[in-house]
């Protein structure tokens, strides 16, 4: 009882901050002719509602693919269709074919924001709660703190409720997949993850660990006996899910090919101007996660036994990533929410870290570094260095944020500040990759020693 009331408080705080951010601007607000991601989502509602299925991904007179053509898998299209039905009920003007291009109004903004919130509540938030409840180590207070940190992570809030996207759906479904695997419900996990994949093709980056984990598990159970049977069931689940999602497109061989062509536009550069920023930013995160997951078995066990302190380090890593989104957010007019949410998140993490965990060397898993440096620099006080490095990073990020917004770059280097932001973020990522990989490599040994002490 006690836990659930604390968890519900976290959810409420998360929801409140989401709504408060949604007051602010969205991408492309008031910027004809192309507007931004917000207009893209509205346009997809228009397209999916008014046109037959076989025209959704094709360039026709009614469907100009150059104006925000559909480039996500079918599940996004179905989602847009459902939203379009609701939109039609409320105000047909919102999804009028052609006539509704660039439609902007307060009621429409409310509607669009409401769709994001609805899917968030339905898919992402329950997954986060279950994850924290079942898979986080530590006291119940730490679990609640974990949930709060995840729910208040500014990256997702600002991209989904500010810039405007539906990342909560794909991330939520992927998280359900992880939950399924963690609880031993392989079929459910595969189903959920396949749905995530059919929502956004970027989930492919996560698919490798899923595949390897399940394959490994089946092999362990013996390929001739139960393992084979299990593998067959999983494959069947995945194939059936794919078939169901792609069913309308399977009647004509040209259809799936065109869809794939839209999803993976290798013809254009991957950093095409329109989507450059979003792709860039999210791409980096996904790449990092891929690299992290090379030891797939360890990756999933890592996910399911996240020590609280390690979790907070992960949060800092995500915070740095969020900082790299600054240029994008400033362009959308979201500077104020950026500043407020990042400060809030930072203070919350620091406060929880000091309240619920002491950052000794042991907790920071610095043993690895200790072993490496023992030979060369025996007198190094590693925890102090880590603390200094942390504060230095924060100051650097603050300075860069300030200069990006308020100072004019020199004429010779007009992109100076975004590049500096990217470099700083990259250096952090590099550090984290090394750190996390070392942690994973040392994981089995430490797990044994932990079990002895527990």
């Amino acid at each position, binding site marked *: 009882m006690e836990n659930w009331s604390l968890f519900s*408080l976290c959810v409420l705080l998360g929801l409140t901050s989401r709504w408060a951010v949604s007051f602010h601007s969205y991408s492309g607000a008031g910027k004809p002719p192309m507007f931004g991601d917000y207009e893209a989502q509205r346009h997809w509602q228009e397209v999916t509602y008014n046109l037959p299925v076989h025209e959704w991904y094709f360039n026709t007179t009614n469907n100009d693919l150059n104006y925000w053509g559909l480039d996500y898998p079918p599940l996004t299209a179905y989602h847009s269709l459902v939203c379009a039905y609701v939109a039609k009920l409320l105000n047909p003007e919102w999804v009028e074919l052609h006539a509704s291009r660039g439609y902007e109004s307060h009621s429409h903004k409310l509607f669009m924001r409401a769709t994001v919130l609805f899917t968030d509540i339905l898919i992402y938030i329950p997954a986060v709660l279950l994850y924290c409840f079942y898979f986080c180590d530590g006291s119940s207070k730490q679990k609640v703190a974990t949930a709060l940190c995840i729910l208040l992570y500014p990256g997702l809030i600002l991209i989904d409720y500010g810039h405007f996207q539906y990342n909560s759906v794909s991330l939520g479904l992927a998280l359900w997949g992880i939950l399924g695997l963690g609880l031993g419900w392989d079929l459910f996990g595969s189903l959920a993850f396949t749905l995530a994949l059919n929502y956004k093709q970027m989930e492919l980056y996560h698919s490798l660990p899923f595949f390897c984990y399940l394959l490994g598990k089946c092999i362990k159970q013996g390929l001739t006996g139960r393992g084979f049977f299990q593998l067959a069931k999983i494959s069947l689940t995945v194939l059936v899910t794919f078939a169901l999602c792609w069913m309308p497109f399977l009647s004509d061989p040209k259809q799936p090919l065109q869809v794939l062509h839209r999803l993976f536009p290798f013809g254009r550069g991957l950093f095409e101007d329109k989507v450059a920023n979003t792709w860039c930013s999210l791409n980096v995160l996904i790449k990092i996660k891929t690299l992290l997951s090379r030891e797939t078995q360890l990756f999933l066990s890592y996910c399911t036994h996240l020590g609280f302190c390690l979790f907070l380090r992960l949060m800092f890593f995500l915070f740095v990533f969020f900082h790299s989104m600054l240029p994008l957010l400033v362009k959308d007019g979201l500077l104020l929410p950026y500043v407020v949410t990042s400060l*809030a998140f930072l203070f*919350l993490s620091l406060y929880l870290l000091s309240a619920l965990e002491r950052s000794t060397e042991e907790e920071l898993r610095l043993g690895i570094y200790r072993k490496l440096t023992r030979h060369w620099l025996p007198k190094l006080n590693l925890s102090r260095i880590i603390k200094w490095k942390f504060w230095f990073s924060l100051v650097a990020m603050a300075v860069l944020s300030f200069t990006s917004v308020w100072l004019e770059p020199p004429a010779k280097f007009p992109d100076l500040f975004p590049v500096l932001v990217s470099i700083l973020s990259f250096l952090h990522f590099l550090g984290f990759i090394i750190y996390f990989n070392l942690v994973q490599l040392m994981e089995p040994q430490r797990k044994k020693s932990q079990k002895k002490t527990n």
Partner: protein
Amino acid sequence: TVMAAPVTNDQSWFFALALGVSFLKCLLINAYHSTDFEVHRNWLALTHSLPAAQWYYEATSEWTLDYPPLFAWFEYGLSHIARFFDKEMLVVQNLNYASPATILFQRLSVIVADVVFFYAVKECCKCLREDKGKDLLGKPSFILTVLLLWNFGLLIVDHIHFQYNGFLFGVLLLSIARHFQNRHFEGALLFSILLNLKHIYLYIAPAYGIYLLRCFCFTQSNADGSLQWRSFSVVRLVTLGTIVLSTFSVSFGPFIALGQLPQVLSRLFPFKRGLCHAYWAPNIWALYNIADKAFSILGVKFKLLDINKLPKASMTGGLVQEFQHSVLPSVSPLATLICTVLSILPALFRIWHRPNGARGFLRCLVICALGSFMFGWHVHEKAILMAILPLSLLAVESREDARIFLILSITGHYSLFPLLFTTQVAHQNISHVAIYNLHIGNVILHLFFRKGGALLNPLEATYLLGLIPLELICEFVYPLTVWQKTFPFLPLMLTSVYCALGVTYAFIRLYISLLTCSDSTKKIKTQ
């Protein structure tokens, strides 16, 4: 599961809560703001541009200065900082000027002024009977901090609708805290300052007057708690009088010297407005109006009344205007004053007769605030905050008070929603959801920490849960029905009436608790 005790410094959670709510307020900077925003901008402009002699005569804008002089001086001080944000906002002729810099400045001024409120809450926490050794989440001071700092009624009124209530309530709570701490002179001084900042606090002045007279000027009581006439201290009375008078003279002095007192008073107390504000406050008169309407409809139906003879004026029209009741007798300002005084007299008698120390005073204060809310003339629903905030202090210490607080705060805060109604439907709904769920969080927190059975009995719980269908009907179902065009204000009426029931119930229970509370003067060693 083992609950890890927090390793932090005892007070860091206070800072975390204060910082958290400030961040939320920052996120609300660009939210909808009402005409009160323009009101304050106008006051910034006129205090900055005009000499003091003209402040209460200035009428370029319809939003004339109707707060006492100290608040005008406060605005004057702010205007000097406003210069650095946008000079144009200080031009009186720039009506409805709302540049981004203006919005930023005004919003930030409210957020920064709330520091007074934070300090006051901290002081109030010191006055609680702390239960040591409890886990943080169960500490009364923690719950009180959450209930006050994150009071979502205050968030709505101050940071969306736009007012400076946080700052003012800070002064009030500080004054109460000083009385708890037996620093009565400071408490009296703070209250006089408060009266000169916003005169609505006159409603609770009787509580202060009686309490100070009874418990401070008479230095001792008999063993059974009754008055010891001999212990009257003239010195204390004179000191108190001096404090109050000097505050008033600093504030009103210049205007009296200029002979402007009648003008100032006419601005401060405009009685031309109607019995009910455009959106009915959930008080007795809302129930009275509804009863009148119901009787008139029934009367017409049963041919007891002639429909042509009934007055046509609408009670819920956008403009505040005088109107006549159809069946029940019309209500005049004098009648409401008499009702208000009658409603608070028993409480005043009680603390005169059997004072219960500072807590009895606080209870009486809440009753005065609530009584004047219930029976006052042209009461604004924001006034419910004057009862809810001080009640929080009592609520964290007693089950009965917690019950009353729960009912009062939920219905009171719910009735604040019409403040967010705008022509832009969008914002109304966004704000609704955003802030109301935070309140539910408050409620859960509070419910959770009252172990020993459910806090509310089934009837009360049903009543409160009934707010949900009410909301759904008013928000979503009603606009889709045919009646939306003919009776557009029906949802508001329904909301007021429903909440009025809750408020009345809380008022009655509060009275019962005051009149029946055991006399604990023997237990309290210091007066």
